[in-house]
């Protein structure tokens, strides 16, 4: 098991830990600059409407108000979006969700800004809200965008499913529904935007990819990219939710216009209203097996509610479809999916990236097929598991991995599974309404962004003038422990010393392009980049040291603080080396490994997870409690044990919310809640029970990829495992999340008897 004791000296204090426990670490929303103005945003009150007119005169006249901006004041492109730029910075003609921005205000005080917002007069012609993908697909429905209401449509098939269903011994057909989950990063969106004396603009605002924000902000402001500096770490949580721009365009525009620093920090209510969410999906699956349990045919149809704008909706759909196949082999396949525009907020990137929804459905199919055929559910999975050198789900070439079998075996051997097979039921004699049950699930997830999205990598290592070894990447620290993993990698694997290192991230002026901190890709990318950079860098250091000390060619080594001879005799310090000659810099760029073939999704490097749980269902209240969980994760060598454990625990917590309580309910395009009192994320009470994590580190011999990203996989297997455990406990099948307690409530026997005497 992965824990502090089993990790020994690899369990380390994180480089960013001290600042976090003392409160000294200033987040970007904690920054203040002398003379800062308050920035606020006026958002649409309607889910769908045409703007007839905007009048800002009265707002501008409020004392203390320095700027009131509308679409007319956007000097550059009035659009943003990571892949497709279709979201207006400030809406000019149509508003498509209740978070759409119509005007932005900068004022000396909160009160003045608030008053100004109230005085902006916008006349709307209200349209009928399109509040579901089904409505959006009606041929006579109003179009949200010029190309219609379908953001993306994907189809893929192999063989002939209809013919194969004819040969199946058992077929399960089921529709699954998953909720609109909210990220609930504890730090809401915000930042500080500072016009500098040299004419540049410094943006302090959390994002998962500072360089990408820089491009987008430059386009909006119509200034060269070099005129903008984005500082983007540390971040108080993101989980995918801060990858897309949020308040940055407004802060930047207001600072540009007023020439004064501007602060914006969303209230929770505004964060709920404007922020992206996880895609609600309706997934239909029809799956058939032969009498031996082999899957002959699998048919999938996904309908995703992507909300008002594209952001990464298309890519999430692609990944959902890839994951609708899991880690099994199929004779015949037919999969199809649509991501559809509606007026329901905006759905986008969220940890798991569509896999959470798909795996819930797929594993639900496996459990139902097991019940139907009488085959043990885990055995049924075992029969259909892919083998080490099998191609990917779409027949694309992938890097060999036996992870699926490894985690499958680990789960089988786990104490929870043993306990289940002994069929231990904790019956509490005086509480017969408490039922316990067991369930398990397995998943396989691609890392990297897959086909269609630029997936760059790379980094820089250099000797700074003060003699520190600077290692720079364009990645961000939002709590996942990137800095800790990087530091440990540099020390353990590349032989550098903690005291000599300076890690540089989160500042576009100081980092090279390494791509986005997303899709569980950063650990692998750092590993690959350092594998090339460090030997080259050491070579350059040794050459410089030899030249400086006039040494003949011979072996040198790197010690703490400087270069040494093989026997340990110091040659020179890093500081001396830095002072004495040409700057020593190594930089490289590369791309995340991608499959050489395949029709779409093209992922190449995969990680797997298997999960077993025990739950308790209270049939009086319908409430489910997670009592015990075990996770086996195959992600290659563990980069940082504390981070690995924390990622799986944290992801499991999010998955628990997704399964039992979380749903950003919307009614007619409006959120039915505004804060964390009505949107319930798990508390310590929900997660104080036993949990064990096992890391399976085995990789094929000569593996070049090192530690894989495990930040997302932990969030996908819990929901189906709990669903199965609920069935095991109560006989009730769950196909919609979050689990509705009413579904599990039973009126006790004695009550029924009292009402209906025999």
């Amino acid at each position, binding site marked *: 098991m992965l824990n*502090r004791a089993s990790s020994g000296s690899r*369990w380390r*204090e*994180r480089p*960013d*830990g*001290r*600042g*976090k*426990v*003392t*409160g*000294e*670490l*200033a*987040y970007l929303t*904690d920054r*203040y600059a002398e003379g800062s103005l308050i920035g606020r945003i006026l958002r649409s009150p309607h889910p769908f409407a045409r703007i007839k007119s905007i009048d800002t005169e009265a707002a501008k006249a409020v004392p203390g108000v320095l700027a009131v901006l509308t679409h007319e004041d956007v000097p550059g492109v009035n659009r943003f979006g990571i892949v497709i730029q279709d979201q207006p910075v400030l809406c000019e003609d149509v508003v498509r969700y209740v978070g759409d921005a119509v005007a932005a205000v900068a004022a000396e005080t909160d009160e003045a800004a608030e008053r100004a917002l109230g005085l902006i007069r916008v006349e709307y012609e209200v349209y009928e809200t399109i509040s579901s993908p089904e409505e959006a697909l009606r041929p006579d429905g109003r179009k949200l965008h010029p190309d219609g209401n379908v953001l993306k449509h994907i189809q893929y098939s192999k063989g002939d499913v209809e013919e194969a269903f004819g040969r199946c011994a058992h077929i399960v057909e089921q529709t699954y529904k998953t909720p609109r989950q909210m*990220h*609930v*990063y*504890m*730090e*809401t969106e915000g930042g500080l935007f500072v016009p500098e004396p040299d004419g540049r603009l410094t943006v302090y605002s959390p994002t998962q990819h500072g360089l990408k924000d820089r491009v987008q902000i430059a386009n909006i402001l119509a200034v060269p990219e070099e005129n903008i500096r984005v500082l983007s770490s*540390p*971040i*108080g*949580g*993101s*989980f995918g939710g801060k990858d897309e721009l949020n308040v940055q365009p407004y802060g930047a525009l207001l600072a540009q216009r007023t020439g004064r620093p501007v602060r914006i*920090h969303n*209230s*929770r209510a505004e964060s709920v209203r404007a922020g992206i969410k996880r895609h609600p999906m309706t997934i239909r699956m029809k799956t058939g097996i032969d009498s031996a349990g082999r899957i002959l045919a699998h048919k999938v149809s996904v309908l995703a509610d992507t909300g008002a704008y594209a952001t990464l909706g298309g890519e999430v759909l692609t990944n959902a479809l890839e994951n609708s196949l899991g880690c099994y082999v199929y004779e015949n396949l037919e999969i199809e999916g649509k991501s559809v525009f509606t007026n329901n907020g905006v759905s986008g990137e969220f940890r798991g990236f569509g896999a959470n929804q798909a795996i819930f459905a797929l594993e639900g199919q496996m459990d139902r097929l097991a019940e139907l055929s009488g085959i043990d559910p885990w055995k049924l999975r075992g029969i259909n598991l892919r083998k080490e050198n099998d191609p990917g789900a779409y027949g694309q070439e992938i890097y060999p991995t036996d992870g699926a079998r490894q985690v499958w075996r680990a789960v089988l051997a786990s104490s929870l599974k043993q306990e289940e097979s002994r069929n231990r039921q904790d019956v509490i004699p005086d509480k017969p309404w408490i039922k316990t049950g067991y369930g398990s699930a397995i998943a396989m997830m691609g890392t990297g962004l897959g086909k269609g999205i630029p997936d760059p990598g790379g980094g820089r290592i250099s000797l700074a003038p003060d003699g520190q070894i600077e290692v720079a990447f364009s990645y961000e620290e*939002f*709590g*996942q*422990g990137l800095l800790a993993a990087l530091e440990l990698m540099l020390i353990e694997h590349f032989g550098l010393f903690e005291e000599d290192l300076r890690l540089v991230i989160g500042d576009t002026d100081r980092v090279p392009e390494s791509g986005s901190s997303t899709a569980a890709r950063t650990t692998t990318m750092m590993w690959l980049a350092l594998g090339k950079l460090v030997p080259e860098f050491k070579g350059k250091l040794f050459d410089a040291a030899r030249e400086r000390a006039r040494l003949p060619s011979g072996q040198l080594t790197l010690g703490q603080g400087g270069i040494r001879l093989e026997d340990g005799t110091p040659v020179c310090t890093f500081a001396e080396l830095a002072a004495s000659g040409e700057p020593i810099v190594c930089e490289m760029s590369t791309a995340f490994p991608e499959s050489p073939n395949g029709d779409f999704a093209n992922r190449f490097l995969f990680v797997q997870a298997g999960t077993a749980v025990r739950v308790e269902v209270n049939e009086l209240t319908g409430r489910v409690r997670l009592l015990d969980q075990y996770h086996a994760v195959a992600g290659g060598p563990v980069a940082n044990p*504390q*981070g690995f*454990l*924390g990622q799986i*625990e*944290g*992801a*499991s*917590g*999010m998955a*628990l919310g997704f399964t039992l309580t979380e749903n950003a309910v919307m009614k007619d395009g409006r959120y039915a809640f505004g*804060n*964390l*009192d009505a949107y319930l*994320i*798990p*508390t*310590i*009470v929900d*997660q*104080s029970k036993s*949990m064990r994590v096992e890391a399976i580190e085995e990789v094929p011999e000569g593996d070049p990829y090192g530690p894989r990203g495990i930040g997302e996989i932990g969030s996908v297997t819990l929901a189906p495992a709990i669903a199965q455990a609920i069935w095991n406990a109560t006989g009730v099948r769950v196909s919609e999340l979050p689990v509705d307690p009413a579904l599990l409530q039973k009126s006790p026997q004695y009550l029924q008897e009292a009402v209906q005497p025999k």
Partner: protein
Amino acid sequence: MIDQTWAERAAGSKLECEVNGKAVSAEITPSTRLLSVIREDLGLTGTKRSCEIGRCGACMVLVDGKPVNSCLTMAYQCSGKKITTIEGLAGEEMLHPVQQSFLEEGGYQCGYCTPGMIISVAAMLAENPKPSMEQIEEHMSGNLCRCTGYGGILRSIERAIERGGQSDDRG
């Protein structure tokens, strides 16, 4: 007869209290919250703002040793009180034992809930050095963390209980 204008009344009063052992005074209105005095006026940004409705605990501080949500506490209620924020928890040279435990066990990830979490744990242990799991659950259920799944936090609490108020590892 009302003899004050709204502005005069709102411009209001002065808060005099003690924050982290130092006497402070701040201009407040009747609606000023303690959270904004701490963050905006005093620049002590270790205390975080997240829900502002008393649900998440990110804004937790000690007022006369008791944990309170500073987003729900009116500034005028704090006159004459002793307030401790996360910045005032550590000693001159040593971290508070709870901080030390969080550091060692990795009881944080993004760290945004951490100051509030640590304040709550410190307050709990000051009152009850050996809480049961049930007591821990009850005491800590007002502090939300979205990153850790509470695993690291529970290990940190366990460690802090073992430490029994000792910060020094060698001790």
